């Protein structure tokens, strides 16, 4: 079964902007965020029979868009590592500076080292400012497990950055406000 255009239009009007702002804060890229919104709605259509019975459509969309955004981040980070020499030799076609993204990229690269569920816990906790109960509901884990996963990630961050506490506090604050 598929949604009608009217049903889709209503969903788009209600949810697209919320999703866009959220994806933009994760991806730090407006074009990528637009793409993430389109992909989320495409998946709503593909999974309409499941989606239309959700008590909170936004919660379902958050799960889908989280996975998609994190996969985009993972692909982007991998690309950057391998193409580094290539860019230096022929000159980059992109004008964005690496300097302002260093901290953001460092944390996102760190997310690439943990499993999918831990990544989702971190995103919901620090990007969405969710309570542990909300995070547990979104990820499908118990609250104690969410707490454990977050602490494991913070330990990894401290070992990796050696100054992770102020880094993560600063980044958490930055992501909570305007993305610009």
């Amino acid at each position, binding site marked *: 079964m598929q949604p009608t255009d009217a049903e889709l239009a209503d969903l788009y009007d209600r949810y*697209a902007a919320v999703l866009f*702002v959220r994806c933009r804060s994760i991806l730090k890229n407006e074009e990528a965020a*637009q793409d993430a919104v389109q992909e989320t709605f495409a998946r709503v259509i593909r999974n309409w029979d499941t989606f239309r019975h959700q008590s909170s459509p936004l919660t379902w969309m958050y799960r889908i868009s989280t996975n998609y955004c994190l996969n985009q981040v993972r692909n982007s980070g991998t*690309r950057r590592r*391998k*193409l580094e020499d290539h860019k230096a030799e022929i000159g980059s076609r992109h004008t964005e500076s690496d300097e302002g993204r260093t901290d953001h990229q460092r944390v996102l690269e760190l997310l690439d080292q943990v499993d999918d569920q831990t990544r989702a816990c971190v995103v919901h906790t620090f990007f969405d400012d969710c309570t542990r109960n*909300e995070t547990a509901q979104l990820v499908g884990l118990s609250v104690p497990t969410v707490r454990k996963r977050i602490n494991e990630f913070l330990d990894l961050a401290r070992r990796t950055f050696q100054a992770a506490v102020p880094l993560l*506090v600063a980044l958490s604050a930055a992501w909570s406000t305007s993305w610009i």
Partner: protein
Amino acid sequence: MDLNVNDGTRLSKLQLGRYAAGELTDAESAEVEARLDDADRAWLAEVQDAKDSLLSFDPGSLRARASSQTAEAPLHPQAANTTVWFGLVALLAALVLGFLLVGSPTDPAEIDPNYIGARGAVDAIQVHVWTDGALHPWEGEAVGEGDRLGFQVDATGRNGVVLLSVDGNGQVSVFWPESGNAPEPLDGDGLVKLPGSLTLDGAPGPEVFLAVFDHTATEAVDNARRLYQSGGPEALTEWAERADHVEAVVLERR
């Protein structure tokens, strides 16, 4: 240390999002409104402003995107049935007859003499290796960390390509496009050089390089990752053999 994890004393963005989307009951909305602080109001204003930035609602485009993944050719064998077999025999007979009447569709004289690749008579993905100050056609030798590679792909009838690899650890890496989800644009027909080159890391092999044409990077990566997990490098090369929009070349690693 909790790093100021939300303990429920403030509204989360999920709650604000549900409020903005009209998911809450009247009582829940009233509670949210009573707790809004300046940061919450700023975020809600950002959501309101974002409505002007959104792509226009296009149901046709969304439906096309939704069906593009479900329309992907099945990647595991279908159960055979008698009707299918009779149809295949008839098709095969027609192809053989057509071949005998028309001759080979490929004129060897049209093949670029630099084609040497690893698969098939006409290779849609070609590898070049940097040696002695220039890129030379790959000749099948094992490659290793620090080696620099360039790629050409056959752009005939194609608009874009995602070039990625899966190494011996199952790590998927996308090289073109350099950023974003849209494939690297291809202009013209025939062999097209992809801009720049890449330098290999120390990952183990074999490393399967895939050119996935006219699909997004996410679709290409998701399929590659899934296939590798189910069947290793062989599953990737079988995908390339089966799907018209996928080409593969396997490089052994030193």
